[in-house]
């Protein structure tokens, strides 16, 4: 058994020694928003945030998450209480089939904490660790820029910021 924090709650879960974090989160905790596509760290679908850093959870050993703080899309927001990044993706239609969307949103969350006011080019580079097979990239970049605005307006002392 390992103990870790996921989406703000502490869990004791069974982790197999050779198992990756994404498989454990899906099986033990039913967090199917952690999407697994390539299993090679190329596509970014399984991106979650661990201790504040985005990670491809298909490459992290579940055992290495012991004592860590993991955030998945389920901890970000839900249908009744959407996170501003989720709202932005809906408004800008930053997806088609949406399989890759949780990974993009978690990558965007980590990125916007590092760079709260990005240019379109910076946003595109930041999203280059995620693959969208529908090819919604231009809308995804718009979504990230929209999310930056929403988050900026929510920041205290930043109300007067234009555009």
């Amino acid at each position, binding site marked *: 058994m390992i103990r870790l924090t996921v989406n703000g709650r502490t869990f004791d879960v069974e982790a197999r020694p050779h198992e990756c974090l994404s498989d454990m989160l899906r099986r033990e905790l039913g967090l199917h928003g952690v999407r697994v596509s390539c299993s090679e760290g190329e596509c970014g679908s399984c991106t979650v945030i661990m201790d504040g850093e985005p990670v491809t959870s298909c490459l992290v050993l579940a055992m290495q998450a012991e004592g860590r703080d993991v955030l998945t899309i389920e901890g970000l927001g839900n249908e009744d209480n959407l996170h501003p990044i989720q709202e932005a993706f809906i408004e800008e239609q930053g997806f088609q089939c949406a399989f890759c969307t949780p990974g993009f949103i978690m990558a965007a969350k980590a*990125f916007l904490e590092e760079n709260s006011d990005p240019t379109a080019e910076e946003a595109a580079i930041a999203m280059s660790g995620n693959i969208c097979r529908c090819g919604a990239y231009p809308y995804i970049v718009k979504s990230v820029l929209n999310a930056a605005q929403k988050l900026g307006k929510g920041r205290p002392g930043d109300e007067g910021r234009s555009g």
Partner: protein
Amino acid sequence: MRKPFGYLRPASVAEALEMKAEHGPAARYWAGGTDLMLQWRRGEVEIAQCIDLTGLDGLAGIDERSGAIRIGALASLDALDHAALLDRHQTGVPATARLMCTKQTRTIATVGGNMCNASPGADLSPLFVALDAKAVIRTFEGQGDVPMEEFFTGVNRTVLDGEALLTAIVVPLPAARRAASYRRVARTVVDIALVSSAVSVTVAEGVITDARIALGSVAPVPVRVRKGEELLAGRTAADDLAEAIDEAGALAEEAAQPISDVRAGASYRRRMCGVLTRRALRDVLSRTRGEGA
């Protein structure tokens, strides 16, 4: 489904060495595991035990001590990207780390793991060779170091043997002004290098006192371009070096021993060695000519 492996978590470097010695070659040191996990899934390696090093203290720092920058083997590629110390001393390391894989894999992958995986296409390998860096290695006998140039012995092979563990990479800081640069050709921004060149030049009182050139992806291990280095050493940095840069590029083409594979042809790789070496040289020479040169 691959045969599962066991999991060991040492509390100290000494305990890690003991675990490795006890369990033998099928026990593997595990840091970020971004290469090892895939090699295991593909059935390319047998792993009986994973010795997880990520909980060990004091192996992830990047700091300056006694005229050198010490990079802990567990420093992530993302930490290298953001290391102001490596940037300030013009090592070329942050910009190179930023080229590697993706943000969400750079946060996991470690510099030590990248060196130990010893891929011929590893971006940091030729750069560390050009920077005259050393690998710090712990064994039961104690701590020793090996020049990075001698650290790699073949495709996915290094000098590490038995319980030996890479604990740090040390980049020396010359008293004079030095700049290093890494250039590569890759299919996409996050792809691995088809061919690469790393250059480091030290300039004291306007004269090039030391030049080091190392090529990547053109042989099993990084290749020094010694003739090109000799050509540049002793020249006045302020002079028009266009001809010398051209010639150094030609010598880089000569030194390369590329192969043809699905990713690029040998003749293309050879030509690019010249192009990339010239670009890297122009870049570092313009930077060593700045204030204080």
